[in-house]
C-alpha cells in the first residue's frame, strides 16, 4: 500500500495540499471500509468457529457414547471404594446398595451426567468457547496440575518452536528458490526440482523414520527423539545447543517432505504470472529484473502467497501429531496422542477446541491480511471506487 502510494506521490508533483487532503479522505474511507469488512468477517468466523467447535464436541463425545464409559468408570470406582470401606462392609446388603446408588447419583450429578446429552452438549460448548477447559481425568502437567489449561499451555511452546521454525524455513526457502528458478526456467536445477516434486507425496513423519534410521540408529550422530537431553542442561547456551541438536532431524524431515513440491508449485505460479502482458511491458521498458520481480510479479501474487501461507499454518497445527509422536517431541500433538490413549476426554476435547480456535484465528488473520493487500477489498468492490 505504502509503496504504491509513495511512487504515486513521487511522480505526480501537482498541488501538494489538495493531494494530501484528498488522500487523507481516501485513506479514511479505506479505513472504515476495512473496519466494516473485518467486523463482518469476524462475526461470520465466530459463528463458523462455534459451529466447528460444537461439531467437534459432538464427535469427541460420540453423541454421548463416551458418557457411558464415564458412567461405568464412576460406578466401578465407587463400588471399589465401597468394597474396601469397613463401615460399609458390615451394613446389610440393601443399605449398602442404597448408599452406593446415592453416591453414584451424586457423582453423576456433579458431572451433569444425569441430564440428557443434548442439554449437556451446550454446557460443554459454553465451557469450550470460554476456554473454561476443566480438569483432566488422568493426565497431569509437569508442574503437577490437573487443570487442562495448564496441561495444554505447557505443551504449546515446544510445538510452536518446532513447527514455527520448520515451516517458516520451508516457506521462505521455497519462495526464494522458486523466484530463482522462474528466472531461468528450463535449467538443470529447474528440471531437478520438477523431477523431485513427486517425492513430496510422502509426509514428514515418513522421512523422519528414515532420518532416524540413518542419523540416529546407524551413525549415532543425532538423538532418536525428544526435545532436550535428560536431564536438561541448566546453562542456557548448552540448553539451546541441545535443543538445536534435537530439532535437526524433525525440521529436515518436514523440509524433505515439502520443499521440492512447494518450490515447484511456486515456480509454476510465478512463471504464469511473469508471462502476463504487463510484465512483458515492464521488461520492454527496460526495468531492472529486481524491480520487475518485486512490483510486477510478487505484488499481484501477494494475496495468493498469503493464502498459501495461511493454509500452511493450518496444516502445521494438525500435522504435528504424527511427527511429534515419531520424534517423541513433547508438544501438543503428542499430548493429544497420549490423551487419546488414556481416554482423557476433557483433554481431547480441549485440544480439539484449541485446534478449532487456532484454525479460526488463522482464517481470520488471512482475511485481515487479504483486506490489507487486495485492492478489491481496500477500494471497495463494485462501489465505483477509484481504480
Amino acid at each position, binding site marked *: 500500500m505504502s509503496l504504491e502510494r509513495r511512487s504515486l506521490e513521487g511522480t505526480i508533483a501537482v498541488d501538494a495540499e489538495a493531494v494530501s487532503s484528498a488522500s487523507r479522505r481516501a485513506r479514511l474511507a479505506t479505513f472504515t471500509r476495512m473496519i466494516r469488512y473485518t467486523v463482518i468477517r469476524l462475526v*461470520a*468466523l465466530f459463528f*463458523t*468457529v462455534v*459451529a*466447528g*467447535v460444537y*461439531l*467437534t464436541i459432538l*464427535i*469427541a463425545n*460420540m453423541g454421548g*457414547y*463416551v458418557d457411558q464409559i464415564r458412567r461405568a468408570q464412576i460406578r466401578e470406582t465407587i463400588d471399589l471404594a465401597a468394597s474396601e470401606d469397613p463401615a460399609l462392609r458390615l451394613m446389610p446388603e440393601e443399605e449398602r446398595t442404597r448408599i452406593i446408588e446415592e453416591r453414584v447419583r451424586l457423582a453423576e450429578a456433579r458431572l451433569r451426567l444425569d441430564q440428557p446429552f443434548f442439554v449437556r452438549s451446550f454446557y460443554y460448548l459454553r465451557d469450550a468457547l470460554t476456554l473454561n477447559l476443566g480438569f483432566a481425568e488422568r493426565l497431569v502437567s509437569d508442574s503437577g496440575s490437573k487443570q487442562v489449561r495448564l496441561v495444554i499451555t505447557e505443551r504449546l511452546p515446544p510445538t510452536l518452536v518446532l513447527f514455527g521454525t520448520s515451516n517458516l524455513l520451508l516457506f521462505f526457502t521455497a519462495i526464494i528458490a522458486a523466484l530463482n528458478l522462474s528466472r531461468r*526456467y528450463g535449467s538443470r536445477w529447474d528440471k531437478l526440482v520438477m*523431477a523431485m*516434486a*513427486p*517425492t*513430496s*507425496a*510422502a*509426509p514428514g*513423519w*515418513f522421512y523422519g*523414520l*528414515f532420518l*532416524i*534410521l540413518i542419523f*540416529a*540408529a*546407524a551413525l549415532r550422530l543425532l538423538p*532418536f527423539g525428544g526435545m532436550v537431553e535428560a536431564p536438561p542442561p541448566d546453562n542456557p547456551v548448552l540448553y539451546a545447543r541441545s535443543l538445536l541438536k534435537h530439532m535437526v532431524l524433525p525440521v529436515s524431515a518436514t523440509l524433505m517432505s515439502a520443499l521440492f513440491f512447494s518450490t515447484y508449485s511456486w515456480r*509454476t505460479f510465478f*512463471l*504464469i504470472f511473469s508471462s502476463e502482458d504487463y510484465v512483458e511491458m515492464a521488461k520492454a521498458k527496460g526495468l531492472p529484473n529486481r524491480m520487475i520481480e518485486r512490483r510486477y510479479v510478487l505484488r499481484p501474487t501477494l494475496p495468493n502467497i498469503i493464502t498459501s501461507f495461511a*493454509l500452511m499454518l*493450518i496444516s502445521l*497445527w*494438525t*500435522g504435528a*501429531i*504424527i511427527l511429534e*509422536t*515419531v520424534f517423541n517431541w513433547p508438544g501438543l500433538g503428542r499430548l*493429544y*496422542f497420549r490423551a*487419546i*490413549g488414556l*481416554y482423557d476426554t476433557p483433554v*481431547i476435547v480441549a*485440544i*480439539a477446541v484449541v*485446534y*478449532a480456535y487456532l*484454525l*479460526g484465528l488463522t*482464517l481470520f488473520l488471512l482475511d485481515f491480511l487479504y483486506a490489507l493487500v487486495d485492492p478489491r477489498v481496500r477500494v471497495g468492490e463494485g462501489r465505483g471506487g477509484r481504480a
Partner: protein
Amino acid sequence: MSMFWSNAKRLREYPTAMIGLTIIIALAVMSIVTLVVIPYGEAVRLWRGGAAVWSDSPKNAWPLWYDWLKREKMPRTIVVDSRDPAVEKVVEATGRDTVDVTMDLEFDYPYDGFPPELTLFLTSTYRERRPHVSLKWITPDGREIRVASLTPTRSDSYRFTQDRTLQRRLGRGRVEELLFAVPEREPLVALNGPYTLHVEGLLFEEDATLDAKLVVYGVVHGLAGTDHLRRDLLIALLWGTPVAMAFGLLAAAGTTLTTMCIAATAVWFGGLVDATAQRIVGVVMVLPVLPILIMIGTFYSRSIWVMLGTVILLSIFGASILSYRAIFMQVRTLPYVEAAQAYGASNPRIVFRYLVPRVLPMIVPNLVILVPGFVFLEAALAVLGLGDPVLPTWGKVIQNANVEGALFKGYYYWILQPAALLMLAGFAFAMVGFALDRVFNPRLREL
C-alpha cells in the same frame, strides 16, 4: 471424452509417468495375486494366529535377501520332524508295559554363525504315565554331549537356551554357540557338517507314542523376515498392498466425485443452496481432521472402512469445493446447458448429465494426485496405533516395529520394507498424477 483419451495418450511422452504406471500395474497385479493366494480369512488367521501358527519360525529374523548381501552364509531355519518318513525312528517293545523309541534327528549345518534359538517340540500320547525322554547331541566330529532328561507332557517343548543344567555342563557362553562351535577355539567358529540329536524315549504304556520335532531357528527367514511374534512379514507386506490401494483409490475417488457433485449442485441451484454449501465449507475448514479421525478411532471403531467413510465425509466439504465451484460457474453459462434447459431437462438431469460429465475428465489428475496422501494417511493412523484391528497393513508393520524399538535394536528390515513399499506406491501415483496434471492443464504444459 475423446479429448480425454487423446490427452491420456500424451502421457507416453513423460518417462516418469510411464515408470509410475508400471509400478501401479505391478502393485495391482500383486494385490490380485495376494487376494487369490491368501484369502481374507486365511490372512487374518495367519496374522492373528500366534504361537500355534508360528512356532517354527524364528523371532526377528532378517529376510533372506540380507543373506545375499552378506559374504558369510547366514543360518536358516532347519526343522527335523520324526513324523517325516525320512527320519529314522525305531520302536521296540522291551517289557510288558514298556516301549523304547529311538529317533535320530539328523540335519546338516552348512552355515557360518550360530542359530539364535534351539527348541525341541515333543508330542506324546499316554493315559497316565508320562514318557521318559533323554537327549544326546552328536556333533560332526563325533563328540557326544548329554543334553537333558525329561518327562514331557502330551505337548511339550524343550528350549535348549533355558536349560540351566545344560548351560552349567557346557561352560561359559550361549548354549547354541557351544553346541555348534569348533571346540577349544577363540573366537567361536561354527563347525559345519551333519549333526544329530539322538532322542531316546521310554514309554510306560503299551499303546503310548512319542514324536519329536527339532527346530534350529535361523538368523534369516522368509523373503521378508519375521517380527517379534515370529510372524512372517511377507504376509503383512503382501496384504498391505490391496489394503493401501483400495484405501487410497476409494478415498480419492470418493472425495473428488462427491465434492464435484456438491459443487455442481450448489452452482446450479445457486442462492441459498450455494450459500449453505459455502458456509459448511467454512465450518469444515475449522474442523481439525486428523484429531477427529483419531477420536473416532479411539472411541468408536478402528475398522479401516469406518476410517475411510470418515475421511470421505470430512473431505467432501473441503476447500477443493471452492475451486470446483469456480469451474462450474463457467460451465453453467455455456450454450449447451442453456439448450438443455430450453428443451425442459430437469434439474438433476442437468447437474448429473450435463454439468458433471463435462468436468469429469478434468478431475482425473486431481484424483490421482490425492491417492498418495490417503495411502500415507492410512499408514499414519496405523503408526498412531489406530490401524485396523485385524488386517495386516504396511502401516501396522511400521507401528509394531516402532513400538518394539526396531531402529534402536537394529532390525532395519522391519521398517525399511514396508516403508519402501509405501514409498513405491505413493511415488508411483504422484508421478503419474504430476504428468497428468501437466497434460490436462495446457497452461502448465508450456512451462
